[in-house]
């Protein structure tokens, strides 16, 4: 971008940077406060950002890293279709199509151009994961989808509001294609409120500093973060590091594991992620469009570099990716993509774990890296409909200095679980057990974090049940001689006595009297288990995190307190 050269002192630069971060935070706060659906409120599945007029991130508030930078390709698609020069105050653009820069269909992004005295200053943008965007299943995340058409309504870049007037046609199409459209419109209004706040404050800033100087400040802030990121990358181990991990299956071909391979090359202030060797795109919905792979890369860079670098588009300049076309990390339309979170989480883990041997003090053993998604939908006894979805975490990896943490969200996601008491209010089911899963943490000098056990009984018939698990077939791998974490398991116990083991993914129906037991995976251990401190093993046994049998077999520890 060709900017007019102005003089900006370092103080003003820092003052404006604080204000820009403040604006993004205020937008995010507006989203969290005014959204309706639990997925935003409890799951914090939303984010807000300011952009330059040419689409570089100036500041972003993210509650979950998986949103990092995902708006960049989305905004690029909007600008490509609607040149900035043609935009007017009061315009609002909308998009969700993954093949036009989106992520997956439930993530709808609104864009408000900030135009001051005819001068396009930038964009105020907000993304929300909506509870439903239509398609074949309530919640719009069908595990057995094979085409994007089954996943919901696709919205290419469109003008949702033109000069203050809502596009009535689009509005009606949205309302008629989306379940529980009142909640949907509530969340969309929350996005609009957030974008409006951002646009207003950015315009106010330009009144203080002048549009030209403000644009110059943007440029300098971006350059500064780029410089700092390059410096930090130079301090990491240099070279190429490989890692291979697996997804359980694509939800359609249940016995076929999916290979993810990454080569991370760190060289003189740059970092490159090469996914050559990764499996082709899959029939099921686990494909991730490039924005997701990029978000994972930015998460990895942010986690591996200096936390004090102000996050903006400059941080992303030294990062490059090779995403083979037609692979699971760069699919060709109309591949289904709704369940891409599982893939992104696995990519985040692989990118970081690639450095495990090179930087053992800094990089822990692998976390289970899964966020089990379950959705229940149907009718209550009184005939009213319900949709309930929840995300359940698993164990984190142990490190050189500490045990892993039990049941905690890692890498790209950070959602809360549903309180057992809240679930009873929202749906005709009852949780009858929720506890830590003994012996699921990988053995090691430091033990991996435990997964959890959660058990349900159902109180209505014909409840549509979606299960999207991970780590049912491959363990989180240990570091420095530590053991892997236990794999996930899930079983439906039918009222008539049949049992059905869930092979990582399923869409089925459950009814009154059926029981469901899910167990999430454990994190991996770090270091030789035989060198674990005896007191720590004894405490694990006393606290029922490790059984006496496992203490003996894995740690060589007997109840009497002597090593076997």
């Amino acid at each position, binding site marked *: 971008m060709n900017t007019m050269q102005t003089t900006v002192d370092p103080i003003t630069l820092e003052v404006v940077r604080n204000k820009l971060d403040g604006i993004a935070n205020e937008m995010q706060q507006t989203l969290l406060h005014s959204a*309706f659906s639990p997925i935003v409120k409890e799951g914090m599945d939303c984010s807000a950002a300011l952009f330059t007029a040419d689409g570089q991130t100036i500041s972003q508030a993210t509650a979950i*890293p998986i949103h990092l930078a995902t708006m960049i390709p989305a905004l690029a698609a909007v600008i490509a279709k609607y040149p900035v020069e043609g935009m007017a105050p009061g315009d609002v653009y909308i998009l969700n199509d993954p093949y036009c820069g989106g992520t997956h269909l439930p993530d709808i992004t609104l864009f408000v151009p900030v135009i001051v005295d005819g001068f396009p200053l930038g964009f105020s943008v907000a993304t929300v994961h909506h509870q439903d965007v239509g398609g074949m299943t309530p919640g719009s995340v069908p595990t057995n989808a094979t085409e994007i058409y089954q996943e919901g309504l696709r919205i290419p870049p469109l003008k949702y509001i033109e000069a203050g007037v809502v596009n009535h046609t689009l509005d009606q199409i949205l309302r008629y294609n989306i379940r529980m459209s009142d909640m949907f419109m509530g969340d969309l209004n929350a996005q609009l409120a957030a974008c409006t706040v951002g646009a207003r404050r950015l315009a106010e800033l330009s009144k203080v500093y002048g549009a030209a100087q403000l644009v110059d400040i943007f440029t300098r802030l971006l350059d500064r973060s780029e410089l700092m990121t390059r410096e930090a990358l130079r301090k990491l181990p240099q070279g190429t590091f490989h890692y291979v991990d697996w997804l359980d299956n694509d939800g359609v071909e249940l016995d076929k594991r999916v290979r993810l391979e990454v080569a991370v090359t760190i060289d003189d202030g740059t970092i490159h992620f090469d996914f050559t060797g990764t499996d082709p795109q899959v029939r099921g919905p686990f494909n991730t469009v490039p924005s997701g792979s990029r978000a994972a890369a930015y998460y990895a860079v942010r986690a591996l570099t200096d936390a004090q670098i102000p996050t903006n588009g400059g941080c992303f300049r030294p990062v490059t990716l090779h995403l083979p076309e037609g692979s699971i990390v760069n699919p060709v339309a109309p591949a289904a993509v709704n369940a891409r979170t599982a893939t992104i989480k696995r990519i985040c883990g692989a990118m970081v774990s690639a450095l495990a041997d090179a930087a053992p003090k800094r990089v822990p053993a692998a976390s289970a890296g899964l966020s089990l998604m379950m959705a229940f939908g149907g009718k209550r006894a009184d005939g009213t409909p319900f949709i309930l979805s929840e995300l359940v975490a698993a164990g984190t990896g142990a490190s050189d200095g500490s045990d892993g943490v039990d049941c905690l969200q890692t890498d790209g996601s950070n959602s809360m679980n549903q309180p057992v008491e809240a679930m009873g209010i929202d749906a005709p089911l009852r949780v*009858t057990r929720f506890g830590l899963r003994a012996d699921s943490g990988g053995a090691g000098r430091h033990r991996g974090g435990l997964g959890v056990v959660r058990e349900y009984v159902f109180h209505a018939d014909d409840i549509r049940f979606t299960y999207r698990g991970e780590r049912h077939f491959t363990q989180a791998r240990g570091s420095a001689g530590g053991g892997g974490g236990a794999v996930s398991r899930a079983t439906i116990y039918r009222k008539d006595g049949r049992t059905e083991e869930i092979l990582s993914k399923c869409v089925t129906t459950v009814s009154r009297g059926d029981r469901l037991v899910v167990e999430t995976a454990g994190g991996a251990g770090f270091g030789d288990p035989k060198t674990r401190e005896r007191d720590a093993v004894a405490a694990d046994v006393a606290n029922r995190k490790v059984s006496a049998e496992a203490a003996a077999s894995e740690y060589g520890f007997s109840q009497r307190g002597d090593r076997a």
Partner: protein
Amino acid sequence: MANPKVSIGIDIGGTFTDVVAIDDNGRLHIAKVPSTRSDPSAAVRTVLNKLLPEWKIDPADVVRFAHGTTVATNAVLERKGARLGLLTTDGFTDVIEIGRQNRTQIYDLILKPETPVFLAPGARRRGVVEAIGLAGEVVTPLDQASLAKSVDELVAEGVEAIAICFLFSFVNGAHERQAAEYIKQRHPHLIVSISSEVDSTFREYERTVVTAFDAYVKAGLDRYLASMESDLQSAGIPATLQIMQSRGGVCSARVARQRPIRLFLSGPAAGVVGARESGQSVQQQNLITVDIGGTSSDIALIANGELVIRPEGLLDGFKIRVPMVDVNSIGSGGGSIAWIDAGGGLRVGPQSAGSEPGPACYGHGGADATVTDASVVLGLLNPGYFAGGTMQLDPALARKAVEERVARPLGLTLEQAALGIHRVVNVQMAEGIRLVSISRGIDPRSFTLVAFGGAGALHATALARELDINAIVVPRYPGVLCASGLLSAMIEHEASTAFLHKLDVADPKAVEAVCEKLSAECAGRMREEGVDASRVTTSYCADICYVGQAYHIEVPLDLTDPGTMIQKAYEAFIALHDKIRGHSTRSPARFVNLRVVQRAANRATAPISMSATGARKDASKGTRKILLHGADAYVDAAIYDRDGLAPGQVIRGPAIIEQTDTTTLVEPGWLATVADNEVLLLTREQPA
């Protein structure tokens, strides 16, 4: 003639214990004595044995004794509570350890547990076979054998206290009470807290945590209060010991010990209550209070004279669901360190020089440039009159630090660097204040800033400028505001319970019945501390959310007409939702909790009268050269001694007003007016 009656407020903070004593003639004494962490009540004995005689106060004349204590908070910080056992519904013993599964540091690779497992690790948690349904029905009766076995096992683990949290006990606490009764019978020495009494609202993890903390600190707090009561008695003080609660009201020690969790983080609450009194004394009802200390700043809001209460607070990184005054901490303060990042940018904080070594100008070996050092360079602080002259600041060290750490690396002059540090820290604090205000639906521009803490009044005009605020209040003694807040707080009791019914189908009679039960609970506590029912005012409110929404808004309830009660509540909810969250729809809504708050005024304290307190000093202390943002060079600022200012006096900026516990900067364009009670009211000559 009888001696005038005396009211005493004592606030024990981490570093200092603040004391305020005022008699019916308005004669005021204030003191700061060092706190003793190992024996917090030692400071109180110092007051009784040393200060009262010095101040010629006869203990028999002390009719009020209000106290703010960090004992409950410290027990947690120092992990010195009871050895605790936890009883839960069978199958849910790990809820306290699993928590809500989200993490606070999202980019850290090496993660730490986020839940207070230390309260009761797995070995000290047991299940009981029982189940209550959502409608309060008994699904599975409490299994006596499993209860007996679990309690025996906890006793064998050597527990001193047991917390009980069963699922759905917020709709029916019978099983919890049954279990508690059993423990009391068999093990009368054990402390027991049950969740349906401590926090009768839904979400099992949050309820378990608050109940566990309650049981954890109960015995220690009880011992502490008993010993203090006995100290007061042996000193011959007839007043009842009153304790500050997290919601900003006081209650008698006798009631406080029943609900120890309600004392968490009550220190900041007292400060906000004190700030409210200062604001109201000059007719300001909409206030943003900012307490700027060494390492952080505390921000709170007061709308229409009402404290904003939030449903949960943060203690040692753990979220605890205790209603408390909504005080928000941000990591910028006088000790915040200015540094240059790898990209050559100036940053301020969040690292702080703390009190040791402190800012460079303290001369305790600190080499980093802090906000306080910048204040010295700019001439805003008087090196010879810091902390009441007890500490000599070294301007040369301040200049050296700012020069070497900031000016030279950035190629700026010393003055530009010092101004820059102020500009950056001021914008950080202003953005913090803005975020707190906006997220509560408040536009800061229409509010008045109350500045206190050591550095509050120094930054106030700059913050007001950033936020387009037109008025600032500086309390008479900003350094002991927590102690004076104790004396202006009302006696308050609050009771709430879950009430999960949709508005369109809720029975107004059921609402009334629950409110009556909660009122009776509050009234019982009022009676217990001897408050006459005629002095008590009762307010009713409901937490309401849209169906499907997870966060609720507190809405006042008008019980006068059952026919319109629910409709009114719905309309009020929609109006508040629109105000706080920026939009509203006429979608179905649901009650979450019902709440009753009863308040009673304490004995009023007389307005401070300086003529009663002592001779007036000469106010004017000449001029000093100071440097301000927007000015090219140092300007002469008139310097005043706060103790010498007379009511009605108006001071035009640039000016500096010094007093033992703070320094007030009056920037050009501002007028400082001394009110009758000597509170300073700063206003813009031309409102923004």
